[in-house]
């Protein structure tokens, strides 16, 4: 049994491994990063630290998150802090993680970002791996 944070992204119920979550916050003003990877919404300051804000919807290949969405899950990956935007956060619960029922399809961005799934009252929820949602550098084509 492990501890998970239940969240909602684009109407889909997901959970994050609590070990990956640093804190849960409402972020302040975001400064854009022109010409960076599209899922990078920008930078924000949190407790005198610069944090990269990730539009989680775009990272999943969906339409961009609405600009007013401020709720985010803070995670630390490779020494950098990221704020992953979520539509809503619900609860913290313990679950047993189950493997994914099938191999991730090539363009299935949801299942490619998932580590497995949990069942909450019989309803399946994806376990999203925050490390896989963090944008990776793309070579800029001049």
């Amino acid at each position, binding site marked *: 049994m492990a501890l998970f944070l239940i969240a909602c992204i684009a109407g889909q119920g997901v959970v994050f491994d609590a070990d990956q979550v640093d804190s849960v916050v409402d972020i302040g003003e975001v400064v854009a*990063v*022109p010409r960076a990877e599209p899922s990078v919404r920008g930078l924000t300051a949190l407790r005198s630290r610069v944090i990269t804000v990730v539009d989680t919807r775009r990272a999943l290949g969906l339409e961009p998150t609405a600009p007013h969405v401020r709720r985010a899950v803070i995670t630390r990956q490779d020494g950098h802090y990221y704020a992953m935007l979520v539509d809503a956060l619900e609860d913290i619960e313990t679950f047993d993680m189950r493997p994914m029922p099938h191999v991730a399809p090539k363009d299935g961005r949801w299942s490619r970002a998932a580590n497995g799934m949990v069942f909450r009252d019989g309803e399946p929820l994806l376990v999203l791996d925050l490390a896989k949602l963090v944008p990776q550098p793309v070579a800029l084509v001049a």
Partner: protein
Amino acid sequence: MDDLLQEFIAETRETLEALSSEIVAWEAAPGDRARLDAIFRFVHTVKGSCGFLDLPRLAKLSHAAEDVLAAARDGQRMPDTALVDAVLAIVDRIGAVVEGIAADVVLDDSDDDALIAALTRVEEPVVPAPAARVAAAPRAAPRSIRLNVDLLDRMMSGMSDMVLARNELARRLRDDVLDPRVEAALDQLSLTVADMRDTVTRTRMQKIDGLFSALPRMVRDTAVELGKAVTLRIEGSDVDLDREMIEMMRDPLVHIIRNAIDHGIEPPARRRSLGKPPTGQICITARQSGNQILIEIEDDGAGIDVARIAAKAIQNDVRSAAEVAGMSPAEKLKLVFEPGLSSRDTVSAVSGRGVGMDVVRANIEHVGGRIALDNRPGRGLVITIQVPLTLSIMSTLIVAVADQRFAIARQAVEEIVKVRGEQVRIDPVGDIRVATVRGRRLPMLPLGSFLEIGQGDPSTLVIVSTRDGDYALGVDDVLDTEEVVVKPAAPAVMGSGLYAGQTLPDSGLPMLLLDSGGLAQAAGLRFQRDIIAADEATAQEAVNPALLFEDLDGARRAIPLGAIDRVEKATAEAVHRSGGHTRLIVDGTTMPLHYIGSAALDEALTHGEVEVLRLTDGETECAYAIGGALEIIQLPAEIAAATGGPVLGIAVWEGRALEILDPLVFFLDSGVADTGSVAPLCLLDGAGAAWMDRFLRPVLEAHGYRCTLTPDGEEPPSVRLMMEEDAIGAAPSEAPVVRLRRDREGLADPDSIYRYDRSALIAAVAGHARRGGR
């Protein structure tokens, strides 16, 4: 036990480093008791530690060396070269073995015995050394401890966070009406934090001696290997520098010094024949200038053979012959920084192959530094390295584009110009734009539209210099300069290649640091080598602007605007007089300072500061002291010739006579870079020769030509200059003729050159001199 071993390794390394200069000094003066004692102490300590750490091999080596050194101390053995070499070999071996232990590698020990045997070999009969006994100064216990580097780094990063947290607190409190007691406490906190930050920054600092202490030994070894005699002088070892910076500087410095010994300093015999002292000199000085450290490496060798470098560049396909031909000597000199160039035809074991000055420059620029060359062919080379004091706190320029702000490293910014008036022009060329700043054409990068955050024309150009060339970055505004703590941004941000890091300034909003080189690359800017060549033709046809100023003697004079780099104030302390020359100290370097009269300058300096015009011709810089700048005027076409000196001529302006100063005269005095070859000879011929002698000679000489009025059969001139009317009936000659006309519009002869059109004249002379003269 492991801890003890680590401690031993660290200590031995440290002592070895400190010792290397002692050893060289001892070799120079084998009778020097203090040096001998220092080395004796070292081997003795090693021997002692080896005993209880159970390192038999080191014990054997150090024991043998100790015995010999003890004999030398007691006067039983004369410390001769053989002994010094043998002891050095042992000390080196101890170092190697210690490194082996640190890296957990076992080194071959088969020739240890040979090294030990060499110790007992005696070259000369034993003569008791008449060494004067020098009482060894008792060593005070050092008040210092060894710290893990990681710990220091964590402390530094914690400190930066603390500064930012304080800023945040201050910002929050500022919104409310403050209780004076809270305010006082906050002020106290700010003070303490600032103090603390300085202290913590200093913990990262190291004496630059750590960088220099290994050099005497290296110079000695390299010189011996190459059969050259070199003495090394080091000044300013107590300058502090960021520890990381010291590490980054190590390789470039070693490379530069090896180069100096290998390529620069001539063999003793050759030096003697050149009238130089047989022993070459290398002088390294370090000094702090603001938040920059300047390291100067000066040698008195042959300097760089610019012609050789240029030829090599063509041969190695680094540049085309045409490109090289169009280069000024300074540009040719800069070719040494190009990859794939070595000024020597043979690759020696010392300077090696592959690693060149291009790597040196890349390393230095990597830490935000700059490298400059001052080549004096036949007399030596001075390399100046300028690096920021620390890596983590950076001086930046804040620019605004649309509603966003970005930081640019101050180091990269050459100049900031407003887009208005006649100084700056932006021309659209298809879908790109080219900026012309005072006749200098630069590729332009409008930041707003490039980053897709703003449209419209930029109102300000920031001239940014990169490794490949300069370009004009168009921004909406330049706001401020700020010292910021720069940290790397997330990979997805850095991956764009446009940013060098992120920072949280006092505003509380994150800010990105622009990577000026990356921007240019991403925008696909191409730097043509000849773009520096000013577009003087267009500048001339339009207007002839000049700066009107009040000179120190109260008279109004004017100077062509093109020669002025900037107008600034200089403090009296920055004006330095020596040997009849007056020089102005600017940013750690000096340049000649010209002025109208000594008394007038003295008078002006009593006020504590004086305004100066910084003049540049693109290569050399000099300054001219003035009373104050008045305004920019358009010079009339008619300028009556004056009688030489710094006055070019006299023009009538607003009904008054106005002296126009000739900036070329100042540059002439400033010493023009020597091309290293014999300057081509120009014959000033015909009835107009006297005029040419007065007006064109300074121009030609400034560009590296010699002039004569009378051909002496000895040396045929490379080029003949004549007025148009004289040329018609002139006797034909070997040398090509450049014809000059009096009128601007050359209807009669399109091939002639208007006599005041300097750039065309120089181009024509240069063309003929290349084709005809040689």
